[in-house]
């Protein structure tokens, strides 16, 4: 529709006017300049992305290192996060270094025992490691080596999910503890313990009766107490 004075008023006319060639002559686009500027922007963007990735990696690494340091230091106690058993082979060429602690838990493979062996895989940093095994009619077996040994006082080799789940949580406290207990909600669950003279540690384990209680939460704070009932961990 065109107005009486020739002015565009309808939609089709508007579209026609829009598609009419503009009354100006454009300078051709300088493709080289566009590629030059675009290439610069692309390089800056890639560098930024790479920088962000490196920064994120460094942040994650920092968090992991800090977290590991906090967990290993005594100040990090009494909270101990459950660790999944490594399932690495134990005993073999290793030498048993301690008495065998009988947990009084019996499963299909025999009586569950805990003892320390040398750690030949890490001779420089781990002179001994806690091993969960079985006392069977044919002798002693070593099933799971639980974590490396650390020199600092506190909890070490705290391990969950032992095969057969008859010992849901076990580990040792580097030092002489009279009682070791886990906090599960409002409940305090006391572990069975055994003090070893050499190495000077307190081995602990939670037997089958505590299985459901201990496996429900993602993490269980574990505390060590002296004979007066005072917490050894801060």
């Amino acid at each position, binding site marked *: 529709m065109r*107005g*009486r*004075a*020739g*002015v*565009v*008023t309808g*939609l089709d006319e*508007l*579209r*026609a*006017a*829009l*598609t*009419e*060639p*503009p*009354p*100006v002559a*454009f*300078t*051709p*686009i*300088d*493709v080289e*300049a*566009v*590629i030059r*500027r*675009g*290439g610069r*922007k*692309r390089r800056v*963007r890639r560098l930024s992305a790479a920088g962000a990735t490196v920064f994120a990696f460094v942040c994650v690494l920092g968090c992991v290192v800090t977290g590991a340091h906090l967990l290993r230091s005594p100040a990090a106690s009494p909270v101990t996060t459950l660790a999944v058993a490594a399932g690495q082979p134990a005993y073999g060429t290793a030498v048993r270094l301690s008495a065998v602690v009988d947990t009084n838990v019996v499963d299909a493979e025999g009586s569950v025992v805990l003892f320390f062996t040398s750690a030949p895989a890490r001779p420089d940093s781990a002179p001994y490691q806690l091993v969960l095994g079985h006392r069977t009619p044919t002798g002693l077996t070593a099933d799971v080596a639980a974590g490396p040994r650390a020199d600092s006082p506190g909890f070490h080799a705290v391990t969950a999910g032992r095969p057969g789940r008859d010992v849901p949580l076990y580990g040792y406290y580097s030092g002489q503890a009279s009682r070791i207990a886990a906090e599960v909600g409002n409940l305090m669950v006391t572990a069975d313990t055994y003090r070893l003279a050499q190495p000077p540690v307190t081995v602990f384990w939670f037997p089958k009766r505590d299985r459901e209680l201990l496996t429900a939460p993602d993490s269980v704070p574990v505390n060590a107490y002296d004979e007066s009932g005072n917490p050894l961990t801060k």
Partner: protein
Amino acid sequence: MARGDSEFADFVRAASPRLLHAAYLLSGDRHQAEDDVQTALVRAYTAWPRIRRQDPFAYARKVLANHVIDRWRRPYREDATEDVPERSGPRDFTDGVVNQEWLMRALSALTPRERAIVVLRHYWDLPEAEVAAELKVSLGTVKSTNLRALAKMRVTAAGRAACAAGRAS
């Protein structure tokens, strides 16, 4: 020139006439239109590895429209010049130039968003949903803004017609 660069150069040669035309409709200024298209193409080149197998023209069009709207959102900057712009004199109404003159006047009465929606919808003939997606606004906004823009343009057209009729009598 790398293979990707030569593909991009082909794309620029094919797409720049329409992009320049649209940019001119969006800004009403030839030099500004050239700058806007150059900016859109620089961004298209930056994203070229990602968009080359998709729809690079749609990408450049989207960047162009949003760039023009964003430029209008920035603080107004006036460049002083000693040159007095030419004033348009009376012309033959049957001339296509008249339509262009009216068109640019009508478009200049619109807000940047209204102008972008008119250009995307009626110059590029995009569906309303696609216009909404390119400008990142709702479909309802596109519909209402388009109607408002067309109403404004009709008013401009009516005023122009009245003036023309007065001159003709």
